[in-house]
């Protein structure tokens, strides 16, 4: 399928040299997007964490050991592996901004998109959502509650994009030319470490596009051809190397990432 080009391309740069893996982004995401709490979250293959945090390490022994924390939102791929396979057009990449949509009332729950996504960014509602008594009163008006049997994923807090556009219309400015920081997702807002930057990758003035252009920026699994809109940033070679798969001989050249 033809890759759509957008005037605005929302993107994120996550500085892995700053992220402490504290988990605030993940909780903020949960509250913002009405993801119900889980009593037993010990089976991580069954939990829903739109912003999942991985622990990476350099594989060396003490004391040369290092770790890095990698928060993983939906990559909002330029060439999504998920939306092309959906049989019922429940997930698409068709809106200005390049955010991959997920429409719960359309989804039939076949989970083909989950099989397709190598980032595990998609989550299935295995049961109907349950909030402890009264806690449903804290649901935000931004994202509909999902019934069982549908797939969900990070949307870059798309409702905040909508809100920013409404504000722009109210102010009489161009909703497609939002100033930097007029729209940022809840995770980026919450991050205490300043590790996350959000903006329009197509706007050279935005910090994201500047950071994404540096030699320390990398993306996950680009060799597969997914063309993600989420960038990571690290000055540590080993961290960047973990962004994609490399054969031994490829690593020797040093020009791998």
């Amino acid at each position, binding site marked *: 399928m033809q890759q759509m080009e957008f005037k605005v391309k929302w993107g994120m740069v996550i500085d892995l040299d700053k992220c402490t893996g504290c988990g605030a982004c993940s909780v903020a995401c949960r509250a913002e997007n009405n993801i119900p709490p889980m009593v037993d979250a010990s089976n991580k293959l069954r939990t829903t964490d739109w912003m999942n945090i991985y622990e990476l390490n350099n594989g060396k022994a003490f004391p040369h050991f290092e770790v890095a924390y990698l928060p993983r939102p939906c990559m909002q791929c330029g060439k999504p592996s998920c939306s092309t396979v959906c049989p019922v057009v429940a997930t698409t990449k068709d809106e200005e901004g390049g955010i991959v949509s997920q429409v719960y009332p*359309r989804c039939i729950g076949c*989970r083909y998109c989950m099989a397709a996504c190598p980032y595990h960014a*998609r989550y299935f509602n295995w049961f*109907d959502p349950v909030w402890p008594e009264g806690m449903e009163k804290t649901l935000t008006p931004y994202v509909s509650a999902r019934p069982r049997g549908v797939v969900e994923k990070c949307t870059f807090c798309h409702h905040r994009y909508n809100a920013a556009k409404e504000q722009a219309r109210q102010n009489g400015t161009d909703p497609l030319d939002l100033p930097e920081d007029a729209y940022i997702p809840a995770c980026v807002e919450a991050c205490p470490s300043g590790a996350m930057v959000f903006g329009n990758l197509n706007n050279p003035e935005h910090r994201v596009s500047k950071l994404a252009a540096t030699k320390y920026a990398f993306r996950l699994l680009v060799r597969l051809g997914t063309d993600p809109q989420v960038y990571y940033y690290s000055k540590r070679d080993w961290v960047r190397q973990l962004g994609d798969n490399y054969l031994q001989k490829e690593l020797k050249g040093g020009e791998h990432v």
Partner: protein
Amino acid sequence: MSEREFWPEGVERCELGKFLAWLGFISIFLLWGLYGAYKVLGTGIGVTALDNYFGFGLWITFDLAVIALGAGAFFSGFLRYIMRIDELKNIINLAVIVGFLCYSGAMLILVLDIGQPLRAWFGYWHPNVHSMLTEVIFCITCYCTVLIIEYVPLILENRQIAKNRFCHHLAHNFHVYMPLFAGIGTFLSTFHQGSLGGMYGVLFGRPFVYREGFFIWPWTFFLFVASAIASGPAFTMLCATFMEWITGRKLVSYETKKLMGKIAGLLLCFYMFFKIIDTYAWANGILPGMGLTFDQMYNSAFGYGKTWLWLELFWCGVIPAIMLVTPAVRERPALLYLAAILDCVGIVINRFVFTVQALAIPVMPFDQWFSYFPNWAEWSTSLMIVAYGFLVMSLSYRYLPIFPQERALNR
């Protein structure tokens, strides 16, 4: 009117009491499966062992396997009605019923497997024409309808039903148009067998199953068609043999079985030839292109070792292929059946690794392997479909004239 008068003419069947006891035994599995289905539909798919890593598991493996094995229906129909291989008339009815059971069973499983079965019709109303799964939904439902149309005249041929003139004529007319349905079935079936393979072949985020650029994009399309027609006839033949074993009666001549074995063998050779090239090209082309090695695709600690590969390609691939094309082997029933079983097992393994192992492999370098083992909810419902197959087949065998040679062979 005695129950005996519903039997096909000139054949013996077991006592009604014994038959009912047999149905009762089958019903145990049906009831267990119905309970599982009730839990799945009533509370959610969370009652299974599926998870966000293994969104596909036993159910999809089961579906793909029975659809592959059910390919005997369309392919036998194709050979019988289009290629005019007359010998196959002795087994074509069985092939149709097996096919019908496989496809209808797969659809029942799909009702459980999709999270929102009430919206299943969205596949028709809001189709994504780029999705292989859309093609699968279209073709499977259409082909299932074709199989129903092929199955109906068999029912109408029941001794008592056929006394009704309308039914008799209807059955006759169906038979007249059977080549047409066989043609449609062949077309639909080939397409969706291919689409099922294509479903995996297009997953460029899954290095284990992704295939491109070799013959034509995505070439799993053709490999799935080839593997289905290489195992379908063998499975149909095994079904006949299994029924003979249970009923103690001869149903299909050994000549016909040998022919089915030969057909399966030739196709299996064809399939294995390309499958081996495919595996080689994948390991040496696609994987390195993604920065991965062949070894990284296997991990025996989590149950996904290379044993599966050896089983699939060698023990259940090359070996049965050689056996089935060797006339001396086909002459010996035990070896013929063994080869056919290996053939079917190999295809099931293929569908299993494509479905489950593909998802178990970590793609992000910092990700990890995970194991999946189906739980009672998946086993019970899958067994329910098997029991459903036994139920329909038992009734069909008892009351429908599906084996034209039966009278002669048991004289």
